[in-house]
């Protein structure tokens, strides 16, 4: 369902985005990017290349110095309900339970308490956290915390899901599990995902489109479409020759940006 179809339906695009800090530090330079609807786009690059900055510009948290972000052709001004963000450090409220954390976005939108609870419970179940609603973040493992963050992002039912190195703060086994679960989730839900990562393997494994950023100032170096067959068993993806080939290919093109 996800692979094979053309990348024509563009839900979000950036036009010539540039971000300059303090008038001298150029973080991003003329980034023009098309994000196909219903696909997972990975933004990949060495650390400090501005990939998180790009995601925050798309989220509406950082105003670009030049250029614009458009969702379905409409220029965005700040954050909006069409985009939900999953944070690298989870960004959970430590004094609030899983339920309260998941319901936060709904509360901000003024959804009545009962409805809030029902919707939250639905997504808590969907990310596999049923039974942990009343736990506090410090009582959870890293993986469970990020599941909470994911559930919170899902509650507002936005078409676009932005993920900022979401699995980088958990251990390797948990990362694999979360990656698999994300793919499973995307199989049943039609979401457009923009996923920032520094892991080539993660990008190739998950993404329909991999955008490679060059370092300082960040600009698009290359765009690769993995075209990996994800119809079959998720476990088999990493054994496909195409997967192994691509990881090597991307590494050799990325190498020159890593000092």
């Amino acid at each position, binding site marked *: 369902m996800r692979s094979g179809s053309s990348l024509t339906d563009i839900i979000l695009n950036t036009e010539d985005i540039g971000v300059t800090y303090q008038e001298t530090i150029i973080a991003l330079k003329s980034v023009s990017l098309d994000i196909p609807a219903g696909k997972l786009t990975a933004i990949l690059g060495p650390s400090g290349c501005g990939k998180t900055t790009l995601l*925050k510009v798309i*989220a*509406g*948290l950082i105003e670009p110095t030049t250029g614009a972000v458009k969702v379905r052709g409409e220029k965005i001004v*700040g*954050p*909006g*309900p069409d*985009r*939900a*963000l999953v*944070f*690298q*450090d989870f*960004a959970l*409220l*430590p*004094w609030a339970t899983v339920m309260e954390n998941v319901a*936060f*976005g709904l*509360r*901000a*939108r003024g959804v009545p308490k009962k409805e809030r609870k029902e919707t939250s419970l639905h997504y808590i179940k969907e990310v596999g956290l049923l039974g942990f609603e009343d736990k*506090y*973040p*410090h009582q959870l493992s890293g993986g469970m915390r990020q599941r909470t963050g994911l559930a919170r992002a899902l509650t*507002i039912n936005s078409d676009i899901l932005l993920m900022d190195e979401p699995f980088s703060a958990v251990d390797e086994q948990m990362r694999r599990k979360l990656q698999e679960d994300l793919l499973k989730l995307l199989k049943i839900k039609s979401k457009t995902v923009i996923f920032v990562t520094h892991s080539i393997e993660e990008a190739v494994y998950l993404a329909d489109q991999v955008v490679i950023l060059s370092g300082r100032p960040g600009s698009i170096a290359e765009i690769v479409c993995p075209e990996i067959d994800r119809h079959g068993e998720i476990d088999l993806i990493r054994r496909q020759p195409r997967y192994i080939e691509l990881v090597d290919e991307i590494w050799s093109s990325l190498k020159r940006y890593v000092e």
Partner: protein
Amino acid sequence: MLNSNLRKNKSFIRSFSLNKLLQKSPFWSLIFWAGVWEFIGQMGWMTLLPPLSDIWYAFSELLESSAFWEAFAMTARTFGIGLGLSIAVGIPIGILMGISKRADKILSIWVNLFLSAPITAVIPALMPILGIGDATVIATVILFAIWVVIIDTQAGVTHVKDSLVEMGRTFGCSQWQIVFWIVIPAAMPEIITGIRLSVVRAVKGVIVGQIVIALIGFGGLFNTYLSYFIMERFWALIIVVFVMSFTIIGLVELLERRIAFYARTR
């Protein structure tokens, strides 16, 4: 520092055979030193130091005198109002300084100046303006207590993780929602610490204020007892004031431990 002090104390105490008993509990230490006091008092070596038993007697007299209860009521009133105002005004100022760079630039020099300034020196200047009464004592309490509330609240607010605020923004929270739902609860452990420290300072402020004015409240009593040389009552009053401060500070610490549960988990 504390450790070396303790060790010195221990080696001093070790020369007594009571050593083990004293180490067991602070209660026995109190009893021991009370005994020493009583002994010196009974010997009559120092007129300034009457025997503890006489002070105990004076203590019950003190509790029966209306002058004491008037002074107590005044102290409680000025302490309560001064501390309440310090917290109620200090927290918003601290939040403002934490979220607005401009407010921080304008105010931080004054807050830091007053935080370390010898406030006691200012009290005589307050008297002609505010008169000899509650207002001056309340002002003293505020001058003692408010700065630490402001500083700690600001520290708490500036240390709130950026990602939490960004999270609020992505969900479309208003500025007020971000302040009340995210920033203030996230800064709560520091705010509570600020309140605890301000209680300690307010206790000092309310006593120092009355003593410098020397005509009202406990300050007036201290002055009277000293000038008429009623040392038993003077010491009884000192003990009352010590016990009161100790109790209030103990209560606040108990409260802090209950509230600070999530400070560990951030």
